[in-house]
């Protein structure tokens, strides 16, 4: 395949940044999107230019490190996958591909396509846990039976990989889907109910402080979420928030 890439280049947080054109040849359909960027970077290094910086690590869709806004979509045109699981067979010979970073005030650019998502971490520091010490003296695991449906729903919420696609894709840069997934996982389990009120209040407050926008229920986040986190979680978080407020 022959491709034209238009890639966001930005030296650092202060730099203004711009889209730069690159031509690539000999790209195989079996390559992953990030393999393709590796090929581009290898060529840039050989030409004495700086390679394109992008975040990635596990390259199997679970660590949540990779990002990228590809042709106007978080994680690109495929559904239910992260950028690292996107394959070149989703594109055609001769295509032009726009590659930008995830954009949000709460995700400042570090360099090129790499953004700082530590705002997600800070939201979790204020409540994303159950206060139990790791003494090993807790009760036997089977003393807390949990309804299978609740356990499965909690698991589904817990599969969020914290990549930030929901924020990047939202016109308001809202982090509601992410925070709701975290709140829901614990709200659905008996172990999490004791601190449920404090948790939701603290996490939502921190989310607002970080500069994320509000939710207007467009549902774009659910469509782009690589792990299929459901909008129902947002409804659940709103109920939890309301319960905690009255």
């Amino acid at each position, binding site marked *: 395949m022959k491709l034209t890439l238009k890639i966001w280049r930005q*030296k*650092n947080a202060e730099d203004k940044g711009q889209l730069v054109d690159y031509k690539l040849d000999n790209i*195989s359909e*079996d*390559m*992953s999107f990030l393999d393709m960027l590796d090929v581009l970077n*290898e060529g840039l*290094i*050989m030409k004495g*230019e*700086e*390679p394109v*910086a992008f*975040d990635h*690590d*596990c*390259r*199997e*869709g*679970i*660590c949540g*490190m990779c990002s990228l806004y590809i042709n106007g979509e978080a994680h690109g045109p495929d559904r239910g*996958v992260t950028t690292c*699981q996107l*394959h070149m067979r989703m594109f055609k010979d001769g295509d032009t591909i726009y590659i930008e970073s995830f954009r949000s005030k709460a995700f400042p650019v*570090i*360099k090129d396509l790499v953004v*700082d*998502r*530590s705002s*997600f*971490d800070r939201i979790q*520091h*204020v*409540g*994303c*846990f*159950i206060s*139990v010490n*790791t003494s*090993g*003296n*807790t*009760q*036997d*695991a*089977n003393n*807390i*039976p*949990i*309804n*299978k449906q609740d*356990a499965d729903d909690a*698991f589904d919420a*817990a*599969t969020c*990989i*914290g990549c930030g696609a929901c924020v990047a894709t939202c016109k308001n840069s809202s982090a509601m889907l992410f925070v709701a997934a975290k709140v829901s*996982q614990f709200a659905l389990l008996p*172990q999490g109910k004791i601190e449920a009120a404090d948790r939701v209040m603290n996490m939502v407050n921190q989310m607002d402080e970080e500069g994320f926008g509000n939710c207007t229920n467009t549902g774009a986040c659910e469509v782009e979420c690589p792990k299929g986190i459901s909008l129902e979680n947002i409804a659940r978080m709103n109920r939890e928030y309301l319960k905690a407020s009255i």
Partner: protein
Amino acid sequence: MALDSKIPNGPISDKWTDYKNHINLVNPANKRNIDIIVVGTGLAGGSAAATLAELGYNVKAFCFQDSPRRAHSIAAQGGINAAKNYQGDGDSTFRLFYDTVKGGDYRSREANVHRLAEVSANIIDQCVAQGVPFARDYGGLLDNRSFGGVLVSRTFYAKGQTGQQLLLGAYSAMNRQIGRGKIKMYNRHEMLDIVKVDGKARGIIARNLVTGEIERHSAHAVVIASGGYGNVFFLSTNAMGSNATAAWKIHKKGAFFANPCYTQIHPTCIPVSGDHQSKLTLMSESLRNDGRIWVPAKLEDAQAIREGKLKPTQLAEADRDYYLERRYPSFGNLVPRDVASRAAKERCDAGFGVNKTGEAVYLDFASAIQRYGKEQVKIKHLDENDAALITKLGTEVVANKYGNLFQMYEKIVDENPYGTPMMIYPAVHYTMGGTWVDYNLQTTIPGCFSIGESNFSDHGANRLGASALMQGLADGYFVLPYTIGDYLSADIRTGKIPTDSPEFDEAEKSVKDQLERFINNNGTHSVDYFHKKLGKIMWDKVGMARNAEGLNEAIVEIAALREEFFKDVRVPGTLDSFNQELEKATRVADYLELGELFAKDALHRQESCGGHFREEYQTEDGEAMRDDENFAYVAAWEYKGKPSEAVLHKEDLKFDNVKLVQRSYK
């Protein structure tokens, strides 16, 4: 220097309890004055950092990722072992201990493994209390599955994302301590050296990967939890950033490196598709619970399949060779990983491989789909003769168990594994070798500890499935917090460790010198060019099957490649900015040394055991042949300036509770 493993006296089942009853403790007021550095935030590092902070120590945790939650433990799929015996199928602490020692081909330390088995049940209790959503049955109780090399169901799981859920559990425990200010988190930081003062580990030099700044951090003890070194092969199931730098730097400063040749080649990975590939993807071993592994029985069928003239689904049962079921009737598809990997290689080498490259075998779910489908129509009182319905319901059961894995496979290979068998081939996955540690998990540098995959102690020459998660959390939650306290009890009057000492000056200077050398080198090849070359030498000559000739060649070739690398590598960008090529360069420099020691260790071990298979030492039917008389020891290597001059120290392994026999899964 003689190796002292510091194994407590007494019967094996009492050692850990007695040990805990007699160690020195640090009182809570003194803990507040003690700093601990933890490098790596996977299951071992994350759980250790959280627990040490809960106890009251001041913890500084480091990870190269942008958040501790992204450490590669997150990619572990299948499950975590624990001797709970919830299934009532005969499991016990002793059985888990026994299976692990046997599975490790009798090359692990009995006392450590028994302790691991003892604390395994606590891990499950702890994780459930933290809100880890393990799979449950309809009664609301925890479910289990089976893994390779054992005859009981002791594996707890959360679909195919067990590692993710456990790591998020450890991360949530960390969050609580970060919020309280007891853990100071350093994301996007990489440790580039350890600092020793008066022979003790007293701090590290780290690079801030965003600004490029070189930082000094001091502490009373340093814990290395940086994972394994599988990326020495370039292609592996490790994350792209997984590296051995922290472990290798402490090795160069005095920590012995044990059994580097023990590497696990995992049998069920997606086969390599081409030269462009940057990493390999694992398909969980749990798939072998339901998938049957086969190749065509006739060479001409295999040929036709490779050429695309024949489809696997067209082959009659009689024309298929379910070679694991044939060779190992008692364990069948659930033989341990080393055995399954070698069996796949044997069939492919004999010409029965099923993809274009000839390096793939089938993993087939058709019979599982039928079996589950028939069960479902019975349970739901539906038409037992409706074949389409049976397939549909069976597919749903399989999707519920392994859905995310099947999806992952389909995205990568572009084939639907519900309709046609998956293709799999072995790939580098885990390293059993690592930093030598004593019973306290302390390395040969006082005050420097090593936990999780980065140490060597629990898995011998082969790790059983679902045991890595168990070991990581056992070390971090339940073992290290005791053993490190015993060491630190002598340090309560030391006071803050200053960073303006000559030792810190010197370590920082050597780090800066190396980085500058890379940037100013202006060579003609990228870091990846050298890494790929190293990977090829390792896979071809130090991979699944090794022999003296190939290993001798590898040692020479790696040393030459290393020299070429330092002369000719090109690292673009600057020192004082975000520079991913510079990060890679420091990691590959270490792999180029580690790889040579790895080959040297493989050459010296003139026997086959677990993941280490020497072609010269095999039984008539191609099974690994151990030499217990001469090699029942841990090979701990001491650094002496370069890998070729490393000095061997032996820790003899004593087996008082398990009888050494030839491992048989027939």
